[in-house]
Every structure is written in C-alpha cells, then in structure tokens.
C-alpha cells in the first residue's frame, strides 16, 4: 500500500496533465485528480497485478470524469448557466496562451475523441493501452483519433504559422 502511495505521488504530474486535457479549468481538473486518487486507494485490491499503474489510474480518472459530466449535464439545465464566460476569463488569467488555444480546440471535440487525444497524443499511451483505458476496441480508438485530428488540424492549423 505504501508502495502504491509513493507511485501515485510520482504519477501526480501526469494525472494533472491528463485531467487538464479533459476539464475546462485547472480547479475542476485538480478535483478530478483528487477523486481519482481517492478511488484508486479505495479500490487498490481490484487492480490486476500486471496492469500498468498509469493506465489503471487513467481509467479511474476517465470514469470519474464521465460520472461528473453526467451529473454536470443535469445540473447545467437547472439554472441559468453563468459558467462558461467566467471559466474562459479565469483560464485566460492563468494559462499560457498556447495552452489556452490548444485547450479551446480540445473543448470543441466530443468527449470520447478528447479522451483519445489526451491519452495518445498528450500522455503518449500506445493504442493498445489507450483502448484498454477507454474500454473500446483498437479500431474504435483509431477512428476517433482520426476524426479528432482532422478537427484539430482545421482549428489549430490556421494559428500554427503564427505560433
């Protein structure tokens, strides 16, 4: 258990990066990481001995994200959504412009495509590992990646020359 905790601490920077690719702002991303850590420690016994720690915790974080999206989707319809504007302003104040531009492009992708991009392009997981985390066949992962890349090329391509 102590070994697992030490490994989780070592994995924290990558977990935060992965969550940052999914969530819309840094605070939400860190909350997501915290939930994933709590769940990982609570379910440590269920981890298969041969599974990579990173892939296992990424899977937990992904599930936590999906749970949160469902709950948020319901809440978003409850009251006046005053959120989006504030979030962009918040992000603009703290994030580097390049990160902001990339995050905004990612935000335009459907959830499942964004997950595929975060796992493969940003976290550098293999197709096999990423498909395992997302619980889909490799063919599904690669077609999501292809569609996501097409969208991202068109969104980011125009600014690339300036960057």
């Amino acid at each position, binding site marked *: 258990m102590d070994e697992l905790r030490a490994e989780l601490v070592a994995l*924290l*920077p990558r977990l935060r990066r992965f969550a940052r690719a999914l969530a819309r702002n840094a605070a939400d991303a860190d909350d997501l990481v915290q939930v994933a850590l*709590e769940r990982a420690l609570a379910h440590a016994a269920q981890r298969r001995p041969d599974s990579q720690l990173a892939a296992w915790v990424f899977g937990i974080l992904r599930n936590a994200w999906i749970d949160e999206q469902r*709950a948020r989707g319901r809440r978003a319809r*409850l009251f006046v959504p005053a959120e989006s504007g504030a979030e962009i302003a918040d992000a603009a104040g703290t994030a580097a412009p*390049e990160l902001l531009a*990339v995050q905004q492009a990612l935000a335009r992708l459907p959830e499942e495509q964004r997950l595929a991009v975060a796992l493969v*392009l*940003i976290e550098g997981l293999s197709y096999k590992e990423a498909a395992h985390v997302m619980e889909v066949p490799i063919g599904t992962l690669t077609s999501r990646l292809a569609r996501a890349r097409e969208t991202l*090329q068109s969104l980011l391509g125009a600014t690339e020359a300036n960057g």
Partner: protein
Amino acid sequence: MSFSEETLIAYADDELDAATRAAVEAAAAADPLLAQRIAQQRALRARLRAAFEPVLAEPVPERLLAAARGAPTRERADNVIEFQARPRPRWSWSQWGALAASLVLGVFLGPLLLRPAGAPVDTRGGRMLANVALSRALSEQLAGTAASAAPIEIGVSFRARSGAYCRTFVLREAGSLAGLACRERSAWQVLALAPAEGTSSAGGGYRQAASALPPPVARALDELIAGEPLDGAAEAAARAHGWKP
C-alpha cells in the same frame, strides 16, 4: 502505393509494424505530398504535447499530495461543484423519510428555520411538506418560466427511481434558498433545502438565479434521479396528470 489517413496517423504515432513502416517511409521519400501529410500529423502531436508540457512542471497542490498519500481530507477548491467521491448509496423510496430527516432536519433546515423570513415548509407527521405558496409553484409553474421578480423559480423536473416526480426550486425571498421536492401521497415532500449559491447576500437589489445548486441539493438530485430530467413537453404532461407517477 497509397496509404489511408489512418495508416499515416499510425505512422506518426509510431504504431506500425516494421514492414508497413518501411513501406510508408519508402513512399514518402518519393512523394513530397505524402511526406507533408505525415509531417502535419507529427506537428499536431508535437504541438499538443508541448502545450501541456508546462503542466508537468507546476507545483502539485498540497491537497493532491495528501490525497495520494491517503490522508483523510475533505478540502476542495472553493466554488467548484463537488464531485461524487464515493459510490452512491441506492436509496429506496421507503428510506426517503430517513433521508429527509437527516438531510433536511438535522443538517440544513435547523439553522434555516431560525431565519427571520421563516421556512417554506410545514412539518406534518414527521414529513417536511412544502407550504402553500411553494406547493402551488411546484404544482403549477413550469421550469424556467418565472419572471425575474417571481419569488419562486422552478429549476428542473425529473422522475425519481421510485417513479415519483421531483422538482428543484429556488426561493428568492426566504434569504435565497434552493431545494428539491418530490410528489408523494398528494403532497410535495421537501427532501433537501440549503442556502442558494451564487447569490449576493448584500441586502436589496436584483438577485441573480443561482448558477449552481448547493451541494446538498445537487447530491440529493444525483441520488434520486432516474435517467435524464424531463423536457418541456414531458413536464407539461406530468403537470396535466397532477404529477401522479
């Protein structure tokens, strides 16, 4: 030889077997356009990775270090919707009485009842029921239709797993409270009630509708809801049938 976009992407992602990889490289050497398409895929990957690289160098917040070490901590960043950290208990309808008692009476309603404006509920037979004004709004008002000056706004309507209809609401005049009530035995039973978030407490002036449900109410909603909230047509139909399951 021509290659599909997926093959080129797999090449850029270093996922091809040696033979296909060699074939792509040979073709790219002879075809500048193909080489350019591969370069674009690689550039995109490099750009995304570089953009997120600085996150790795950020100091990790103390609360996350504590969580990774398994330290008990409940602190979360302010003004962020609370995440569901633990598996949800599956409350049944028969347990709602207990849920209401612990949520509403014990924790949240106690202090609220002492407010000068009073509480929008009546206690009857151990149940917290909506008072006359709140009941009328819950029975008659459609979600999101209240004028900005209306004292009660209905947030969303949904069916609980028990089959009962439930609705969230915001009371603007009682010091701004948000809550959740379900139709049970011909009455609206209030199952959660808490000070609304995102409202200015400074006296007077226009209060904006809460942009987020208070966590206790959001939690109650998450526990109770079956499927998705009702759309406008389903809500109107439910109202026409008197909110009977």
